């Protein structure tokens, strides 16, 4: 019994149909399931790119091969030449399809000779592979301007594809509601603008566009662009316009005014420089001390002595006068030198050339420096209050009504009109005391007229000029210390002025 079962088992082993079972099993063991992938056809700048992504990352193929076929073709799969045995996961299939055909694309992944991945994709170029159009918005008042552009240059579109870009469908979203799409034809233009009006102010409107030929899905629609229509948009623009106009109206007259003021010289005046000849030194030494003026010094000693007729017989012992006689040319000069010891102010008119200045006679430290010679200048300075040698230096400029200026407290200057000063020789004793008194006190504002010995009134000394005569005589023993000149002759610097002389001559 047991032997029969064993024999039967051995017979079954040899004659039972195991081979098909084993073959099928081995076949199952040899064929590995192919991995699938996700194929996506995208378009960017009119370049259609097929890309794939593996579902599982069990075994990555080393390279890929892309092939395609059309549904209407009876031929087998055609390999894409640029996408054979590639390592990247994308393939450009821009030039291989027709718009009306339905294509199948197949991606096969190999690892050596072993096929690991195989996946297929169906696409219809007319509706499946286009970039959405670009959209721009501009809102004003209650309307929105929508401008649609091609994603790239119009020249990049193939003729066979132009029918795909013939029209655009614009959808407007308001209050979370999309209205019915507005179809706008491109008419082979680079961009098309359409206006949607009668919108509600202070509302948000979003716009999206897609090519009319494409199936409505998120990939084929452009990103939403939104705008809020506010009532201030128009006023804002108007404000800007008003402000700009106001600025123009204000600035324009101001500019014109500035130009006129500049041209008239009211502003931005050019400084004109005066000639150098008119430039005066900053410190004018004084009107009495012009460098080009010849200065002739004169001493005036003022005495307040009693009137005394000048006489040779007079006892001169009461005074410290000394008479002298001198003959020169045709003139006989008699005079006396007196030195006043009184403390009173003494009017002494004494003139001398600056070059003949005797330092002994000058006890006053205030000696003005001689000025330059001039034809018409005679300077005098009267100084009162000197002690022993009361030397009055009087500087004056006797030209044209000269004026004197006080140099110190003790000195004062005065105009001496020598034409009013009595002048004559010593023989003239007939002068009355009154006359002498009048003459002798020019400080009492009596004019001094110069009168020669013949009584002829001399020329009014108005300026210092050189004159030989006239003699200047003070009958009351006044010293004549001034120098005079006629108006016609120039003053020479070599005038002889004697300190003790009672006459003045040049």
């Amino acid at each position, binding site marked *: 019994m047991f032997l029969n079962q064993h024999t039967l088992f051995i017979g079954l082993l040899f004659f039972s149909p195991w081979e098909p079972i084993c073959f099928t099993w081995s076949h199952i063991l040899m064929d590995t399931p192919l991995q699938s992938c996700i194929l996506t056809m995208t378009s960017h700048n009119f370049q259609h790119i097929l890309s794939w992504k593996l579902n599982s990352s069990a075994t990555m193929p080393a390279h890929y091969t892309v092939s395609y076929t059309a*549904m*209407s073709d009876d031929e087998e799969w055609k390999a894409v030449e640029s996408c054979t045995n590639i390592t990247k996961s994308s393939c450009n299939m821009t030039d291989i399809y027709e718009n*009306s055909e*339905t294509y199948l694309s197949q991606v096969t992944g190999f690892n050596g000779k072993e096929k690991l991945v195989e996946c*297929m994709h*169906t696409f219809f170029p007319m509706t499946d592979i286009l970039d959405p159009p670009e959209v721009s918005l501009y809102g004003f008042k209650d309307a929105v301007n929508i401008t649609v552009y091609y994603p790239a240059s119009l020249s990049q579109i193939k003729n066979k594809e132009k029918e795909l870009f013939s029209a655009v469908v614009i959808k407007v979203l308001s209050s979370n509601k999309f209205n019915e799409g507005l*179809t706008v034809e491109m008419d082979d233009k680079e961009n098309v603008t359409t206006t949607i009006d009668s919108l509600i102010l202070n509302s948000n409107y979003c716009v999206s566009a897609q090519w009319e030929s494409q*199936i409505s899905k998120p990939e084929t629609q452009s990103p939403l662009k939104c705008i809020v229509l506010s009532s201030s948009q128009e006023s804002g623009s108007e404000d800007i316009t008003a402000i700009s106009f106001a600025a123009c109206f204000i600035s324009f007259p101001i500019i014109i005014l500035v130009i006129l003021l500049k041209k008239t010289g009211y502003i931005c005046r050019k400084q004109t420089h005066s000639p150098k000849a008119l430039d005066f030194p900053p410190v004018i030494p004084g009107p009495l001390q012009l460098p080009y003026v010849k200065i002739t010094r004169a001493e005036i000693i003022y005495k307040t002595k009693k009137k005394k007729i000048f006489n040779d017989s007079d006892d001169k012992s009461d005074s410290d006068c000394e008479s002298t006689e001198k003959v020169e040319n045709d003139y006989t000069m008699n005079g006396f030198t007196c030195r006043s010891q009184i403390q009173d102010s003494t009017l002494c008119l004494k003139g001398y050339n600056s070059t003949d200045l005797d330092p002994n006679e000058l006890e006053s430290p205030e000696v003005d420096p001689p000025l330059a010679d001039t034809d018409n200048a005679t300077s005098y300075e009267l100084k009162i209050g000197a002690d022993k040698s009361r030397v009055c230096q009087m500087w004056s400029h006797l030209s044209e009504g000269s004026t004197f200026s006080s140099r110190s407290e003790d000195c004062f200057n005065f105009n001496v009109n020598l034409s009013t000063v009595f002048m004559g020789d010593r023989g003239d004793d007939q002068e009355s005391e009154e006359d002498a008194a009048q003459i002798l006190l020019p400080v009492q504002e009596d004019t001094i007229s110069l009168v020669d010995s013949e009584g002829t009134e001399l020329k009014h000394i108005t300026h210092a000029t050189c004159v030989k005569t006239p003699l200047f005589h003070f009958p009351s023993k006044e010293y004549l210390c001034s120098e005079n000149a006629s108006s016609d002759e120039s003053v020479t610097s070599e005038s002889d002025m004697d300190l003790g002389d009672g006459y003045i001559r040049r």
Partner: protein
Amino acid sequence: MANSSMVQLVLLLFFSAAVSSDQYDSLRFHQRRTNHRSLSLLKEMIGEIHPKCLREGMDFKVPREIVQPKQCQKENATMVIHEMLQHIFLLFSSKNASPGVNETITETFLSVIYQQMVHLEMALEQEMHQVNSIWGSEDSTLPLNNYYQGIMNYLKSKEYSSCAWKRVQVEIRRNFVFLNNWTECLKN
């Protein structure tokens, strides 16, 4: 008397041209929408094609006159478009049409085609009343009849299999691409 009748005829032609111009614009607008919606619905019907259906390859020999219109006239385009839509409607309204396809999609597809056919018939009736045209002759529509008859024979031979219907749906989608070209002929 004769002059007044001539004036009336001229006025009739003038206004009819004006009306027809607006009518063709409306017709073109509706046709574009019909084409777009039909393509979208056909894409849903077709979906992803299985590679096994590739073995069912068939060249239906579309007439060249349909692929690229030679005489792009509005009246001729109206007639051609109407004929094509009519055949497509008959094809998808037969029994066992589009197996495995949602019936809603098929009904919507047929509704869109029918509405456009009505518009086209109204335009054709006005054209036939105005001018004694040759648009109604069967000679011009013979290639179209043969084409769609060949599609019907293919389905019958394949026993209305799913792959056969897939191929037919793909072919009809090509038809609407051709219809886009004819629709542009309606442009003034």
